[in-house]
Every structure is written in structure tokens, then in C-alpha cells.
């Protein structure tokens, strides 16, 4: 078992942004791939890299990150899948001894993390993070100092899943020191009363707090008038769902976080540290941004990412931002300031970069914001007022279609 069951081929830099001494180095490790399957691992690793750079704020730090794949050929494919957990009973010989069924739960896929760390250190000494990709169609993954995920595309219920989300969430813990924002330990209805109320101690992580006003944590990012933004009326239960869900750029204090139903708060209703598939909330994004900034090169420019037709639109927004530092959305007749450098920034940029992927309401809101900025520069009073009237009508109509929420 273990090192006798395969061979380390070597490390390949698949995203090269320069000297590993100056960049953040993420290593993706192959487990359960036979030598003949390492081409699939290369595809899986590239698939992960593409996904990572689609997630804010990694998109803004694309040039800060080197991604390596560590090609390790195992004698056999997959991972141990004990029958005791309802698995197939397979026990393939793999280099890092990956196995499902840790703690009696089939989805709990683990491997020899000590061996992973020493192997990665031997091949990419300047690594900051090691994540293991296991060649298996069985859904599973776990976190820890080394994140582990299978490449399954469906869970056991047959629902589509994106395995990359598991690794990105675990990076939130192992690299950036973020807390879980969900409000149960083992699950709602499973936990005992110890999960009803958080302790009186402030968690050390930046994205959870016992303060209903987030004092000293993210109070500077709050853009709602009601604090706590959501309270849990029954601490013996998980907090109720909000319908519609407030969007992630609405930052407040939502009760239910850090494995407890009451007494701990999270910044946004959803976040990748609460639910896979969601964006990181503004607080987590800020933490990741501050972490990665020292790894940014002085200048980052990628010709393959330049699309002039899109750049013009982004430049229009930027121009407006430079002029007055923000925009306004009118909801219910009330002007609501939006800081494009704040949590909304990535939604704005994503929508401008891929306008046809954005919802019509988001697209029209952004166009309206840009037009509002530009119209303020028109020298003729009559034309400026005419443009502003039309723009604000567009904004009001579009903003009314955005989810309802309360913003300061």
C-alpha cells in the first residue's frame, strides 16, 4: 500500500505566472490515476484551474497564482470503497491510499495527507496549498490541511455537482483561515442542544462573529439598515429560509453561523463558506484579496483575455467610478447608493465581461449606471436632463426586477 503502489512522475506548471518564489503556488495532486490515465488528470487539473479563475476574487488575482499539477501514477484506478458504507468493496492499490467511508460515511473521501504533504514539498517546495483530485466517479470529498475531492459529476441522489466547489471551499479554510458559515455541525435535526447557542467567545476567523453589529469584523462593509439583518426566532432549530434569498452583495448580520443556530452571525445570507456553488461573500472576498495581494505582480496583462468590445463597456463603468466613486439604484422611488468597489464589483464586472450571461435586470441596471455616469458629463443642461431622465427610468424599471432587499 502507499508509495509501493505507484510512482511520482513529476510536477508540471499548468498556470505559469512566474517565479515560484514570488507567486502563490497551488499544487493539484493526482490520486487513483493509472499512468495511462494521466492525460485525464491533466484535463481535470485544467478544468479546476478554469473554474478557480471564474470565482471572485481569484479572477482579480489571476496573475498572482501559479498552478501546478503533480503527476502521480497509481497501479490501479479509483479509491477504496468499503462495502460497509454501501460501496462496491473495491480496494485498488493507489499511491496515497485514498478511501471513502471515513467515520462510516461513504462520501467522506480521505487519503494519506502526511504523504501528500511530504511528496508535494519534495517536488514544489514553495507550495502554499496542496489539493488532491481522486479519479473516481463516486461522489466524495473532505477538508483539512489537504483538501480531497473525487471527480464525480453526480451525487448519490443523481443530482449534478461541481467537484471543484469542494476544493475551493476547503481552500477557504486551509489557506485563508475562513470559518464555516453554516449553522449546524452534523446537520439540522441531527445536532443536539449544544449547537443551539454559540459560546460567548469571539471566533478568531474574520467571517463569523458573536456581535450583532459585526463590530471590529465587517461593520465597515454593512450596507443594510437593520441589524441583525436576520434573527433566528427559535434557537432549537436552524434559522428559517428567507424567500427570496437576499443577494450576496447585501452585507449585514445573519444569525446562524459557525455551527450554531443562535448567537453567531455571518455577513451575507449565502456564501461559498456556507453553501457550495455560491460566490464568496464580501467579507471572505476581502480576506482572500488581502492574502493574495502580496503575490500580485506589478503589472498583469493577458492578451488572450482582451476583448475590445467588452473592454469598452468595462472602461465606461470605470470612467464613471473614477468620476464620482459610485452609482445609484432607485428601488421603490428611493435612491440607493452602490459602491462599485464594494461587494457588487464582481457582479458588475462579470455582467460587463459576459453581458449575455447576466440577467436582463442586472444587465439593464449596469447599463443604466454607466449611462447615468456618462450623462452627468454632458455640457448641455437640456440634453443632460433628457439623458438622465431616460437613464433613471431604465434604472428604476430594472432595479424593480432585482430581488427585494433593504439597503441603507
Amino acid at each position: 500500500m502507499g508509495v509501493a503502489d505507484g510512482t511520482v512522475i513529476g510536477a508540471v506548471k499548468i498556470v505559469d505566472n512566474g517565479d515560484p518564489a514570488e507567486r502563490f503556488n497551488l499544487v493539484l495532486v493526482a490520486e487513483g490515476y493509472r499512468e495511462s490515465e494521466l492525460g485525464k488528470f491533466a484535463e481535470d487539473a485544467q478544468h479546476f484551474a478554469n473554474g478557480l479563475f471564474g470565482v471572485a476574487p481569484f479572477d482579480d488575482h489571476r496573475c498572482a497564482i501559479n498552478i501546478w499539477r503533480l503527476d502521480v501514477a497509481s497501479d490501479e484506478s479509483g479509491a477504496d470503497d468499503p462495502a460497509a458504507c454501501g460501496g462496491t468493496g473495491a480496494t485498488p492499490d493507489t499511491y496515497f491510499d485514498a478511501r471513502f467511508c471515513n467515520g462510516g460515511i461513504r462520501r467522506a473521501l480521505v487519503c494519506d495527507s502526511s504523504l501528500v504533504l511530504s511528496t508535494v514539498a519534495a517536488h514544489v517546495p514553495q507550495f502554499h496549498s496542496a489539493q488532491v483530485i481522486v479519479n473516481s466517479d463516486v461522489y466524495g470529498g473532505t477538508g483539512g490541511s489537504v483538501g480531497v475531492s473525487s471527480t464525480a459529476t453526480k451525487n448519490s441522489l443523481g443530482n449534478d455537482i461541481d467537484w471543484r466547489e469542494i476544493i475551493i471551499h476547503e481552500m477557504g479554510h486551509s489557506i485563508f483561515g475562513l470559518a464555516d458559515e453554516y449553522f449546524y455541525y452534523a446537520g439540522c435535526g441531527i445536532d443536539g442542544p449544544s449547537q443551539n447557542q454559540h459560546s460567548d467567545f469571539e471566533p478568531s476567523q474574520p467571517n463569523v462573529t458573536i456581535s450583532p453589529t459585526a463590530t471590529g469584523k465587517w461593520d465597515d462593509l454593512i450596507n443594510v439598515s437593520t441589524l441583525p439583518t436576520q434573527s433566528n426566532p427559535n434557537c432549537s432549530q436552524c434559522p428559517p429560509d428567507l424567500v427570496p434569498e437576499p443577494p450576496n452583495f447585501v452585507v449585514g448580520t445573519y444569525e446562524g453561523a459557525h455551527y450554531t443556530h443562535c448567537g453567531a452571525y455571518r455577513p451575507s445570507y449565502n456564501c461559498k463558506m456556507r453553501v457550495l456553488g455560491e460566490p464568496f461573500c464580501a467579507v471572505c472576498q476581502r480576506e482572500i484579496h488581502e492574502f493574495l495581494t502580496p503575490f500580485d505582480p506589478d503589472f498583469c496583462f493577458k492578451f488572450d483575455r482582451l476583448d475590445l468590445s467588452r473592454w469598452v463597456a468595462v472602461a465606461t463603468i470605470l470612467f464613471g467610478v473614477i468620476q464620482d466613486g459610485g452609482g445609484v439604484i432607485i428601488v421603490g422611488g428611493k435612491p440607493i447608493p452602490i459602491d462599485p468597489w464594494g461587494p457588487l464589483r464582481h457582479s458588475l464586472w462579470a455582467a460587463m465581461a459576459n453581458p449575455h450571461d447576466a440577467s436582463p435586470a442586472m444587465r439593464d441596471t449596469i447599463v443604466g449606471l454607466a449611462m447615468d455616469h456618462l450623462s452627468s458629463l454632458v455640457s448641455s443642461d437640456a440634453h443632460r436632463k433628457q439623458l438622465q431622465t431616460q437613464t433613471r427610468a431604465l434604472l428604476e424599471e430594472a432595479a424593480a426586477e432585482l430581488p427585494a432587499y433593504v439597503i441603507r
Partner: protein
Amino acid sequence: MKLVSSQRLNMVVPPPQALVPKRDTRGSWFELRDREDRPVYRRTIDNPQQGMEVVADGPGDALRRIDDDRGVRAFFVIVPDIAGARKFVVHAEPRRTSRDDAAKMAATAATYEFDLSDIDKGAQ
């Protein structure tokens, strides 16, 4: 908790967080301390002794914590080479589960200290 190995490398380290945590803060972090035992670098880390996180099938509760049946686990940290730093200190919350009683939930973090000169001797 024991130190398994160390290696001196030329690389960028993450920026420090607030050197002194706010009063009544609990969690897991590591520090470098100087001769007067003052922190000179500090970063929050994922609790190395916490139960492991596992994905779940149910919609809306995609993640949960479970007990880890592996006896020994390894983790690593990257610390800067700061002139005047003398000690490497890890604060680690005790392992907790949903079955813990109030006393165990209230247990304070353990502190593990390592002399940097000893670490250097063990550096590869």
C-alpha cells in the same frame, strides 16, 4: 502536537493579521514571538484538531462536520523569517463534536511552543 520537519525557503509569505487578537477571541492561530514574548507575526489557521468536513447529498446543507477516524493528522504552516523572532507558537482549539457537553464546549485552546533555534537545527 509535535513538529515533524521544517524547511527554509525563498518565497512570499501571506501578510500578517492583527498581532494581538481582540479580548475574548477564541480559535486557532499561530504566532511568531520575540525575546520578550511579544507577537511579531500572527495568522488564523483552520483548527488542526477539529473534526473533518465532509460533503453531503442534501440540497441546502452541502457540508457538515464529522469525527475523523484517522488517529494522526498532519498540517503545515508558512512562517516568515523575521529578525528578532524567537518562538513559533500554535494556539489550537480542542476538538469538539455536536455531542459535547457544555464543559467541553467551553474548554480553552491549548498552546504549543517551539523554539525557532531548535526548528532551524531541524531544517532541511
